[in-house]
């Protein structure tokens, strides 16, 4: 196995990731339209303008959220 593959946890589920994986590429693989996707990485919010540039690392914990119906 390549040592370049690693895993991250997204909304409590372990996901495989690979070298060069960014927030943007992860969202795309998950089928989440980036418009209004809200991302927290290791407890810190990720700025939308940084989705392309934020490289994921082994063991990262992510929360992916978005606006939902509410009052």
């Amino acid at each position, binding site marked *: 196995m390549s040592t370049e593959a690693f895993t991250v946890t997204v909304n409590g589920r372990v996901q495989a990731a690979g070298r060069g994986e960014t927030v943007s590429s992860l969202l795309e693989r998950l089928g989440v339209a980036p418009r*209004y996707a*809200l991302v927290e990485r290791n407890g810190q919010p*990720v700025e939308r303008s940084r989705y392309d540039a934020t490289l994921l690392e082994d063991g990262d914990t992510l929360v992916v959220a978005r*606006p939902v119906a509410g009052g």
Partner: protein
Amino acid sequence: MDDSLVIAGRELRSRLITGTGKYASPEVMRDAVIASGCELVTVAVGRIDLDTVGEAITDHLPEDVGLLPNTAGSATADDAVRIARLARAGGLPDWIKLEVIPDPRWLLPDPVETLRAAEQLVDEGFTVLPYVLPDPVLQKRLEAVGCAAVMPLAAPIGSGRGLKLRHAIEIMVEQAEVPVVVDAGLGAPSHAAEAMELGADAVLVNTAIARADDPAAMARAFRLAVEAGRAARLAGLIEEHETAEASSPLGGLASRS
């Protein structure tokens, strides 16, 4: 006459804000939002279910309607601050309906945690609209830390019971330095009109519209009621009297005297 509602420098022509929860479908929600004439809707922030990614609520909203993210799901100030930061970082507006609700039965907001979160979020540059019990003392504390509006509940969320806490809301209106938006518990357009007549700056309605048999028609009814109540407030209501006061001359043709 220009009678716009101004919150944090933003002019809103409609004094009705609606929620997007509890609708039978996103299409029904969209029709109701349009019929309400509102310019601002609340949305919550939720984790995406990776198995059924689906569509975002925002895909169904008219483009010209502004979003007011809420901090639903927060039981503490820290929870609320986390949601607000996540929303803003991800591109949602920096306006936040702050709600900190530890109790699932009555869904009443925690005033201590709300004040704590409000202070923090104002410091971080958010425009903060806290959802509160109608407490005139808390209102002053929230104004002092820089909240842009204060949103007292009329009755518990979703109860539809109307202005059960009317007297406290009247005190808040009387001493308000920032807009008072009556939020939660309004079940009928007449309740919304009453809130506007007593001087509320706006109302926020969700369940009463979303759960109506015809949500779009009910949204229109609330729009009209809010407009009527506001117009009545500006027109100046008469004082109540204990006894009758004739509208016609008493010494008419049929007078026995």
